[in-house]
């Protein structure tokens, strides 16, 4: 079904030169120009390294993105995810024609409108209404189009009272609302959106995501969406591309892509260890230091993957260096998206004095409580209202699998952060 493909990215790469632009740059430019005049290839396109920000490189040239290939079908919402500096914005800039690629081609069958930032070109001295026209036109609407939508836009922004007041009198939230309202009423074939949803209050964010969903669902428009908000990506996108250091490392279903991204984006990729040891006083203060945290099953075997019908035990070993009172140690579970699942604390057993020495807390997460997803395990220790021994520290991740998937051939996904087994009954 090649006719369905609305956008095709072929072998796109973008090279940047590091350092300052100065007299040294002109010699490179002249060299490049000379080679070009002779009909040769650009000599500097051959050099260059992949873009790993934290390592020192040899070459002055880096490839912000390289060898990017993907296709987008009409009506699809493609998510582009990746860490900072992975090349997302560069890719979007090329897609929205703000800058050209160094190599490769992008072919499109539709008009692309980009929303790399809301409120581009807003002039503070002009009124809201005037800015709607100007901003709309910058984004590619004609005056007639804006005329037909102006009431809708004002209504959506919720700034009716201020619409004839200069924008410089607006609160920053109002500016964003007005700007997003204009952008949301664009009708391009392909809409490129970069993290614009991370603004405005909760109500407005909800409205914005809803509008985005409308755009893709009911209007059948193609959307390219870049965000760090995995919840938004999951609720909007049908497919995702994961970028890492300028290269496309994964392409596929949203859930799989988000999992891939999250699993590979931790500071160390092997977070599924089931146990973690700390050097002396690495985590902690002069009162208490963390020694070891483990997750294990009923047979005392250290594991990182559990079935949902198994108890999960977590042990927290601490070194108490001076006697403490009224302390509290806590186990915190989060989803990989950073949503808190629960906090469980040791209040009852740590009210009294604890003298110097090594202690091990054990806490059991009962079976049939967690959902079939992955969780990050945090521990913290403190004297409530006074000070922390150690702030919530991410120890490792655990993965829960559906025990039924062993017998049956499917692994059923449930919504929500937990999936407790509750008692159901049926009466007539």
């Amino acid at each position, binding site marked *: 079904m090649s006719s369905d493909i609305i956008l095709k990215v072929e072998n796109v790469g973008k090279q940047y030169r590091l350092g300052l632009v100065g007299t040294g740059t002109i010699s490179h430019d002249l060299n490049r120009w000379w080679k070009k005049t002779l009909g040769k290839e650009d000599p500097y396109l051959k050099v260059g390294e992949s873009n790993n920000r934290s390592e020192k490189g040899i070459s002055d040239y880096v490839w912000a993105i390289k060898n990017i290939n993907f296709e987008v079908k009409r009506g699809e919402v493609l998510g582009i995810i990746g860490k900072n500096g992975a090349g997302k914005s560069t890719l979007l800039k090329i897609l929205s024609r703000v800058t050209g*690629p160094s190599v*490769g081609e992008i072919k499109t069958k539709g008009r692309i409108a980009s929303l790399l930032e809301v409120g581009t070109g807003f002039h503070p001295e002009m009124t809201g209404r005037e800015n709607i026209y100007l901003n709309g036109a910058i984004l590619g609407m004609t005056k007639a189009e804006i005329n037909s939508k102006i009431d809708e836009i004002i209504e959506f922004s919720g700034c009716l009272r201020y619409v004839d007041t200069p924008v410089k009198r607006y609160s920053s939230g109002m500016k964003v609302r007005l700007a997003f309202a204009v952008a949301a009423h664009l009708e391009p074939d392909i809409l490129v959106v970069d993290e614009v949803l991370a603004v405005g209050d909760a109500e407005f964010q909800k409205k914005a995501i809803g509008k985005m969903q409308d755009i893709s669902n009911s209007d059948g428009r193609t959307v390219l969406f870049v965000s760090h908000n995995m919840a938004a990506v999951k609720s909007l996108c049908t497919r995702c591309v994961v970028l890492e250091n300028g290269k496309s490392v994964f392409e596929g279903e949203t859930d799989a892509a988000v999992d891939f991204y999250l699993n590979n984006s931790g500071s160390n990729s092997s977070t599924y260890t089931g146990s973690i040891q700390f050097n002396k006083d690495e985590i902690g203060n002069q009162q208490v230091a963390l020694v070891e945290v483990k997750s294990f099953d009923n047979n005392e075997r250290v594991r990182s993957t559990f079935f949902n019908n198994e108890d999960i035990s977590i042990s927290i070993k601490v070194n108490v260096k001076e006697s403490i009172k009224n302390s509290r140690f806590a186990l915190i579970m989060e989803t990989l998206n950073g949503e808190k699942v629960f906090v469980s604390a040791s209040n009852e057993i740590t009210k009294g004095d604890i003298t110097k020495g090594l202690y091990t807390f054990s806490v059991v997460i009962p079976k049939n409580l967690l959902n079939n997803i992955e969780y990050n395990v945090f521990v913290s220790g403190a004297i409530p209202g006074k000070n922390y021994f150690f702030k919530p520290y991410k120890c490792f991740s655990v993965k829960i699998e559906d025990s039924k998937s062993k017998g049956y051939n499917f692994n059923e996904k449930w919504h929500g952060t937990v999936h407790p087994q509750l008692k159901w009954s049926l009466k007539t």
Partner: protein
Amino acid sequence: MKTTEEHWLYVISSNKKLIDFNFKEIWRYKDLLFLFVKRDIITLYKQTVLGPLWYLIQPLFTSLIFTLIFNNLADIPTGDGVPNFLFNLAGITSWNYFKECLVGTSDTFKKNENIFGKVYFPRVIMPMSVVVSNLLKYGIQLVVFVGFYIYYVSFTDKAFNVFPTFSIITLPVLIFLMALLGLGLGMIISSMTTKYRDLTFLIQFGVQLLMYGSAVMYPMSYFKGKLPNYYWLIEWNPIAIIIESFRTMALGIGDLDMYKLLYTSIVSLIIFLIGLVIFNKTEKSFIDTI
């Protein structure tokens, strides 16, 4: 494999064609052009007391000073029966339009970095809008010129030798040439300053120097008589030709040479086309180097 060649609306690629103009696209963005013009006009004098009066004050005072310095002090003759003030006003009005077009477009990329870095639209819309909004300013100043013209002719006897010539009907062509030249030079300069900023320093005093070389405050014939060895500098300066032509049209002094005007048209067109090509080449990647 597909047998039919797929139809793509457009292709974004690394290849830079020399002339790659999508006039259809520019036409589609015409509303944007006028909204930019509107923005420029309504925001320029916001929160000023005199507002658009500033459009008038600047040329009037400059003409006054010029008259004082160049005519009364330095004794540059403007011709018999031609009031000095009117002569200067004519020169300054035309020069201003060219200057505003040149200066206004010469920092297109730098000034609009924020917008250009976020949204695509045909970049050439931006300098075009500058030229159009300056046209309005020019129109107002022209009205003032006509006002003084009528005053001098009807209410004083100083302007006994002032007659507009029939060639005044070609004034729109003259304005078009000024716009073309200013826009072309501005686009060249703005493109060349994206990477190396050196030219921005040149433009600041370059424009000032150019004014002295453009027959703004003296008639070309006077220059020829005084400094015949350097006359070629002025003789082939397209701006000087335009300004001299304007004075011929409006005041009936100086010589309007159709060949020179033709020469100016060709030069303006060439500069404009060069500007367009360079601008077009720059707009694709300037955001990386600015």
